[in-house]
């Protein structure tokens, strides 16, 4: 009996050894495969996305465009998966740049800079981002680059030497971040990310406790149009609250509290807003009389 059992175990072990030869079969059409891969990426199936992107990138029949798409996808997957592999992402971005052409290069530079940032190489990242803004001033990527560049100046960094574990940026660094964004807004005032840029500037001014400037930029952001609900609800509350508490500009406060009530009548803070609105109105009538 013992020998027979042993034979069966061997059999199963052999099956196990063979297991490594398996491969997920692919779709014939490369574009469909790429769509499938992006979908896998966006749904969090990074292993699948990695596999299929790599296969698409290695496909000798791929057109230049498909190769670009596949490499970008592969780099993006390595870069942004839940367990990122930054060195592989870097390789793929570099490979992407070798394809030539503006589009691949822009994506590559932006990606590489973000990796540098994640790895704490601020100087390299800043250099890359500045280069991107300079080389392709009118591109979409330059807008995002400006945001990342500003962020790289203003962001607190991990620093285990500090008791808290973090090093805060100095005021000069924050001013510099603000400057980057302001330059970009000056040269490209109507870029699609202008709203976000103003919000970011305002954030820095709030940290610096320069509230009048913060409010100015929030108002400009509002004018550019901020669509994201989360961002917008904070924007309205901030303008009103800062106007009331810091600037004592009750007219502005009233205006924004009113807009808050109009736009977010069901938001968690609504009762506070309504109360504040009453208070501000009372203050205004008191002022006028």
């Amino acid at each position: 009996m013992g020998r027979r059992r042993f034979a069966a175990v061997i059999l199963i072990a052999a099956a196990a050894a063979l297991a490594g030869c398996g491969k997920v079969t692919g779709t014939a059409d490369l574009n469909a495969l790429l769509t499938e891969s992006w979908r896998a990426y966006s749904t969090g199936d990074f292993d699948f996305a990695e596999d299929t992107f790599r296969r698409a990138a290695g496909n000798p029949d791929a057109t230049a465009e498909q190769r670009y798409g596949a490499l970008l996808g592969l780099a993006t997957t390595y870069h942004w998966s839940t367990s990122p592999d930054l060195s592989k992402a870097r390789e793929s971005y570099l490979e992407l740049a070798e394809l030539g052409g503006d589009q691949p290069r822009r994506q590559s530079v932006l990606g590489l800079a973000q990796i540098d940032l994640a790895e704490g190489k601020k100087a390299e990242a800043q250099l890359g981002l500045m280069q991107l803004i300079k080389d392709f001033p009118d591109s979409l990527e330059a807008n995002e680059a400006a945001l990342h560049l500003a962020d790289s100046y203003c962001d607190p960094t991990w620093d285990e030497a500090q008791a808290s574990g973090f090093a805060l940026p100095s005021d000069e660094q924050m001013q510099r971040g603000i400057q980057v964004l302001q330059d970009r807004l000056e040269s490209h005032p109507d870029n699609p990310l202008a709203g976000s840029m103003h919000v970011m500037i305002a954030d820095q001014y709030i940290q610096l406790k320069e509230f009048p400037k913060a409010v100015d930029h929030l108002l400009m952001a509002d004018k550019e149009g901020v669509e994201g609900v989360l961002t917008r609800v904070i924007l309205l509350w901030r303008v009103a609250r800062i106007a009331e508490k810091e600037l004592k500009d009750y007219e502005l406060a009233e205006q924004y509290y009113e807009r808050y009530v109009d736009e977010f009548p069901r938001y968690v803070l609504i009762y506070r807003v309504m109360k504040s609105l009453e208070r501000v109105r009372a203050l205004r009538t008191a002022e006028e009389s």
Partner: protein
Amino acid sequence: MSKVSEGRGAWFLKHAYLWAMLALIFLPFYVMLVVSFKDNTQFYNRTWAPTWPLHWGNWLEAWDTVGVYIANSVFLAVTATLITLVAAVLASYVFGRYRVPFGDLFWAGLIVLMLMPGVANLIPLFNLMKRLTLLNSLLGLSVVTAAGGQVFCLYVLRNFIEDMPKEFFECARIDGASHLQQVIHVVIPQCGGIISALAIMQFVGAWNSFILPLITIRDTELLPLAVGLYRLQGAYVKQWGPLMAAYFISAVPLVILFAFTMRFFIRGISEGAIKG
């Protein structure tokens, strides 16, 4: 058996022990029966003693919910048992009387399969059933359950057939009986006891099967008993009376089965144990 008379004390002790054990074993029956006639108020106030009035309605309510589960379980258990036994008897006849090529390897594999933890192949099995569109189907479940029961039945039956005197088969063969006829006229009458014991065990096994139906059956009206009862107790507010009535009802088919087959079963187990 020892006819030497024993002391009164020993006699008393033995019987007292057995009755105490029986009382504990029968406790669930008591609980089910007593609680099944209560509404929740009675249940809360006096859980363990009978209370009046008796709520017969609980039983009707319970029947309405478990009736269909019982039908499903009967279907599942009988179908699975039939498939298991037909296949197993035929195959054990072959394995018990002949040495077929690769038979030993197949046999060794069977033993190994008995050791394989259920879950490790549950997921692949699930995927296989998905590909064969056997999910959410009682027939599919029966077939898979039957496959699961094969191993044990084969193991027991083969030993039995191996030990049967060769002359039985020789006589039949001389009379011109085919293999199939030999199975029907020799194997089945000779192994009747063990086959019925196996049938009962398979039936009870299928009646109790839980994990596989839990995972493969989607529709409530196709659920077998075990899963149905499991779902019943997950309700937000338990109506203990109907719940216990349902538990009791679900035991009834087995009570009937055993009432008729108890003798075979005890005999079969005993025979099987001796051979094993």
